[in-house]
C-alpha cells in the first residue's frame, strides 16, 4: 500500500472515530434528560398539583381523609406513616422516588387510583417531594437499595406445580386468598391494614394485579411485600426460584372469561 493511500485511510478512520465519539457525547445529555429529575424540595407547582388532583382523596395533609375518601374502599393511602405498598425496596423500607413516580403514572388497578398520565411529567415529579413531606419517616430513614430480581425461571408445568405446593402447603396463602385465589380464604374477613381499615385479600382471578401485571412485578410483590397491609415479604422464606414458581402459579389462576365481565 502506498504511503499516501495509507495516510488517507488513517484520516478516514480517525474522522469516523471522532464523529462517533461526538455522536456518543451528543447522545449522553439526551439520555440524562430521559432520566427524571425529582425536585429536592417542595415547589409551588408540586403544592398546586397535589391540592388540585390528589387532595380530594388523600386529604390536604396527606392523611387519606379527603372529602371523597369516605365513600372509598380501599381507602386512599395515608402518607403520614411513609408506608407505600408498591416498591422495589425491601419490606418496611421507604419507597424510592422511581416507585412513587411509577404508581402516580400507572395508577393502581382495581382501585380508585387512576393512572395520572394526563398530568405532565413535570407535574407528576413535582408531587413526589410533597408526598414525602407528609411523613417524618423520610427525615429519619432513607430508602434501602432496591431488591435484586433474580434470573427469571421458565414457567414450566413442573414449576407451576411447585408454585401450587407453596401456595397450598408451605405458605398457606389460601388462608387469606382462598384455594381458587378469589380472595375468600377463612382469614380474609378479619384482615385490616395498618390504619385499622378492613382490607380484602387480592382476587387473583381478576388478573388486574395492583402493582403491575408482568411476572417481574408480581414477583416483586412476593419479595418486597406490601407495606401497611397484612401481605408480608417472602424474601427470607422462599428461594428466588420458588418465588418465580409462585408468581407463575398465581398468574395461572387468572380466569379471562370471568375477568371480561368484571
Amino acid at each position, binding site marked *: 500500500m502506498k504511503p499516501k493511500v495509507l495516510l488517507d485511510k488513517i484520516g478516514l478512520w480517525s474522522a469516523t472515530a471522532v464523529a462517533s465519539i461526538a455522536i456518543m457525547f451528543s447522545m449522553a445529555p439526551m439520555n440524562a434528560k430521559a432520566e427524571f429529575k425529582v425536585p429536592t424540595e417542595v415547589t409551588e407547582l408540586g403544592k398546586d398539583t397535589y391540592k388540585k388532583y390528589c387532595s380530594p382523596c388523600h386529604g390536604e395533609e396527606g392523611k387519606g381523609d379527603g372529602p371523597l375518601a369516605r365513600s372509598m374502599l380501599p381507602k386512599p393511602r395515608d402518607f403520614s406513616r411513609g*408506608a407505600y405498598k408498591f416498591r422495589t425496596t425491601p*419490606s418496611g423500607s421507604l419507597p424510592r422516588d422511581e416507585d412513587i413516580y411509577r404508581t402516580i403514572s400507572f395508577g393502581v388497578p382495581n382501585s380508585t387510583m387512576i393512572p395520572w398520565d394526563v398530568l405532565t411529567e413535570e407535574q407528576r415529579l413535582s408531587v413526589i417531594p410533597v408526598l414525602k413531606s407528609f411523613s417524618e419517616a423520610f427525615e429519619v430513614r432513607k430508602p*434501602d437499595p432496591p431488591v435484586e430480581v433474580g434470573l427469571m425461571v421458565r414457567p414450566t408445568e413442573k414449576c407451576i406445580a411447585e408454585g401450587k405446593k407453596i401456595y397450598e402447603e408451605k405458605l398457606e396463602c389460601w388462608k387469606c386468598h382462598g384455594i381458587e385465589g378469589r380472595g375468600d380464604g377463612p382469614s380474609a374477613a378479619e384482615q385490616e391494614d395498618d390504619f385499622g381499615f378492613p382490607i380484602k385479600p387480592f382476587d387473583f382471578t381478576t388478573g388486574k394485579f395492583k402493582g403491575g401485571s408482568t411476572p417481574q412485578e408480581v414477583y416483586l410483590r412476593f419479595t418486597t411485600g406490601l407495606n401497611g397491609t397484612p*401481605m*408480608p415479604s*417472602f424474601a*427470607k*422464606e422462599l428461594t428466588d426460584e420458588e418465588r418465580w414458581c409462585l408468581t407463575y402459579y398465581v398468574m395461572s389462576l387468572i380466569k379471562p372469561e370471568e375477568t371480561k365481565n368484571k
Partner: protein
Amino acid sequence: MSEFQVMRHIFFLSVLCGFLGWCGISSKILSAEQQYTEIEVIDGGNVIGNVKYTDDLAAVGLNLYRDWELSDTSKIPSEKLIFSKINNGIKNVTVSIKDITEGKKKVIPTIHPIIDQQNNIFIPHVVPILTGTTIDILHGDEGMHNIHTRSMKNQPFNLGTTYKQRISKKFDYPEIIRLSCDLHKYAYAWIVVFDNPYFDVTDRNGYFEICDIPPGTYKFQVWHEELGNLEKEVTVHPKETTSIEFVYSQN
C-alpha cells in the same frame, strides 16, 4: 482603606461566618446525640415499686377476652390486661425514667432478647429494650405466621415465617412498637425501646426494680397498652432504696 484591605476584610468575615455556622450545626448535632451521658455511678440509689389498679376492673369497659364471639365458658383471656388477684398488681407495665441526662453505662446485650411465637401467641408480651439492641423473633409453631411491626422511626417490617425460622432485627430509636401476626388476630406483642438504661417491666404481681440511679429528682413514667401513661416525681437518695407505687384508677 484600599481595595485590597476591603477584600481582605470580606474574606476574613466570610471565613468567620462559615466557622460560626459550622460550630452552630455541630453543636446542634452534638446536643441531639448527647441527651444521655454515661458516668460511673458510685453512690447510686435504687427504686422499687408496684403498679396496680384500685377500682373494679370490670368498670374499665375492656373486653378482656381474645375470642369475643364465643360463649363465656369457652372464652380465653387475652393478654392485654393481666392483673394479680392477690394485690391488684398489673403485669406488663413498662417503668422508665423520663428525664435522666446522665447515669450508668448503656449495656447492649450480646445475647439477643427473644420473642417466641408459640401456640399462636408471642412470648413475652412486652419486651423493653435499649436502643441499639437486636431482638431475635423465633417461630415455634408448625403453621404459617407473619411478623408485622408498625413503627415510624425504626424501619417497620412484615415478613412471612415458617417453622423454626429466626429473624433478627435491630432497633435504633426510642419508640413503642406493636408486633403482630395477621393470620392470628389476637397474637401481638410490644417492643418498647428506651434511650437510657433505666427501665423495667412489671412482673405478674406488678413489681419492678430500677437500680444504680444517680441521686436526684426524676420523672418516672409508666406505660400500659390499655391503661396508658402515668407520671410521678421521685427523689432518689444515695445508697438508699426508695419505694413507690403507681395506681391506675378511673378518676
